[in-house]
């Protein structure tokens, strides 16, 4: 991770940036800052404004309001060809009439780099992306993964301050995607360039990023490290979008919280002071829920309605007496393996009080969409 106290200016800054297309506000007063050398992701569902934000950084879209800075320098109205940022497009956008080597050389030629140096840097870059054997091939002769590598090499060869990546792995199959995630991370470490990465795939963002900005409806919901986003989501939307989650609508009663059906559950020790009777959301991760727990844990009674074996774990859907649907994940240890519970089994569901997360009240507005997003995959 990048040193937070680094004295140099942020690589990228968006200050109160807004963009409207017709009547729709696609990006709504977004402010964020990306550190030098960071792998930063913009994560959100389609239409959340992440690609438009990226295009504004690239210079293809001019914001209606706000400022954009690169390394401290205002570039809000600087055209793409004068910005020291390059983009890897979702469609790769390779030049079909040029060979792999000529594609990669394109940016260097525009910068009037001497021939010998172009040839040397192109070869270096093709080696970095493991495409040195295909330098004479035409783009039409390459597979999707190979095109991806060429597009990456073409954008990196000019050593821009920032590399923008717009869902670059979207068109690849799952196995290749996993492989390219590791590759991308390695390449980013080797070249040391700031990456701003747009994706709707939470797993992709979690596995590669130093920090993630979760976006929804043109706004940034939360910016944090992957583990912090998972452990301490700032809103029900983030909780629902990152990982799977159980969201309980509750009211504060005394030292605990009461569900709509009347059950009283304990609150974590670090819960903020909320007035009695105030409504909020309680987040319970499926892996924090325990089946038939023993000892001092909060419990609810219910019936298993669905059992899904997922290899490393088993996922249960439990219909509780209080009218709640809870998802419970149990790791498939040898002891659990011995008594997997079938649908119809009566169980009690419990959790350590401190494993619950209180989501701020103002996050309730997006609860509905979060519940949809947290549906089992």
């Amino acid at each position: 991770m990048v040193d937070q106290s680094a004295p140099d200016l942020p690589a990228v800054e968006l200050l109160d940036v807004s963009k409207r297309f017709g009547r729709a506000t696609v990006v709504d007063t977004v402010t964020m800052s990306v550190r030098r050398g960071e792998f930063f992701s913009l994560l959100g569902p389609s239409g959340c404004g992440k690609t438009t934000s990226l295009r504004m950084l690239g210079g293809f879209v001019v914001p209606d309001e706000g400022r954009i800075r690169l390394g401290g320098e205002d570039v809000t109205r600087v055209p793409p060809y004068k910005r020291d940022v390059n983009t890897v497009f979702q469609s790769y956008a390779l030049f079909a009439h040029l060979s792999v080597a000529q594609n990669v050389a394109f940016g260097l030629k525009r910068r009037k780099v001497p021939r010998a140096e172009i040839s040397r840097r192109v070869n270096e870059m093709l080696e970095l992306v493991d495409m040195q054997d295909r330098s004479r091939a035409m783009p039409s002769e390459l597979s999707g993964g190979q095109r991806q590598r060429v597009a990456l090499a073409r954008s990196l060869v000019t050593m821009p301050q920032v590399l923008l990546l717009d869902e670059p792995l979207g068109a690849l199959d799952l196995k290749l995607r996993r492989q390219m995630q590791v590759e991308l991370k390695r390449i980013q470490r080797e070249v040391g360039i700031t990456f701003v990465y747009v994706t709707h795939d939470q797993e992709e963002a979690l596995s590669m990023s130093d920090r993630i900005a979760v976006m929804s409806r043109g706004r940034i919901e939360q910016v944090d490290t992957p583990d912090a986003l998972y452990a301490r989501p700032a809103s029900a939307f983030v909780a629902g979008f990152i990982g799977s989650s159980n969201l309980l609508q509750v009211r504060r009663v005394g030292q605990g919280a009461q569900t709509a059906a009347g059950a009283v559950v304990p609150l974590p020790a670090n819960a903020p002071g909320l007035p009695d009777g105030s409504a909020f959301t309680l987040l319970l991760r499926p892996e924090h829920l325990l089946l038939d727990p023993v000892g001092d844990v909060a419990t609810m009674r219910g019936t298993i309605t669905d059992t899904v074996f997922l290899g490393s774990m088993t996922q249960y859907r439990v219909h509780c007496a209080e009218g709640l649907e809870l998802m419970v994940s149990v790791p498939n240890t040898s002891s659990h393996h011995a008594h997997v519970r079938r649908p119809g089994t009566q169980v009690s569901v419990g959790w350590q009080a401190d494993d619950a997360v209180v989501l701020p009240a103002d996050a309730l507005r997006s609860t509905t969409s979060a519940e949809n997003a947290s549906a089992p995959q």
Partner: protein
Amino acid sequence: MSASGTFDRPRFLWVVTGLTLAFLFVPVVVVTVFSFNSSASLTSLDGASLRWYRAFFDDVDLLASLRLSVVIALVSSVASVVLGTLVAVGIRRGTRFIGGPTNGSVFLRVLTPETATGVALLLLFTQLGIPLSTTTVVISHTVLCLAFVAVVVGSRLALLSPQIEEAAMDLGATRLHAFRLVALPVLWPSIVAAGLLAFVISFDNFITSFFTSGLGVPPLPVRIYGMLKFGVTPVVNAIGVLMLVGTVVAVGLAALLAAQVRRLRGAQLEEAARG
């Protein structure tokens, strides 16, 4: 599907194919055969001769018209290719507010009956006090061909992702450079095709030429129409065959040129790979 087609294919299909080909080519064959007829008859054959070809090449007026038609076709096809390509780029890459209606009007131009266009151009020139001449024919042909060029080049451009040009700009090319370096190389074949189409449309155009040519030397199709008023002579057959041969040769040359360009580019690639 194709596998079942090999044994399911009805026998009469080749008859249909034969009839279609006959329908297409019998007129061409008739014109060609009669252009070599030694007599002036248009119905019976009397031995072979090059008489009508000689008659054509001896006819100073016809040759003047031919030369004029070639010049008109050259100038108006070049003009319409340049303007039409610009229109296509404007439609596909410009503001949607202007591009949309422009695209509609271009299609409208393709669909407008030529008689209406011809009369309209004639009226326009008359109103503006411009005397009819070769210039007015060239202007009219350019107007006519421009829409076809815009449609042909525009449909290719529509298939070319704007991201290609964005990628070039991203890597340091200005908008104009980006178009020249990464869009134009892909558009070339369609631009050449559009140019050939424009040449052919202009070269054998009668209606628009008829309305807009003045009192001087008429373009070839207008001249032929004039000749028909005094009875059909087999010279017309010879002209038809010459135009046919000319067209085939032009298209063949264009194809050869395209192949040559591809080969040259391949050689450049080799060189770039070595260097």
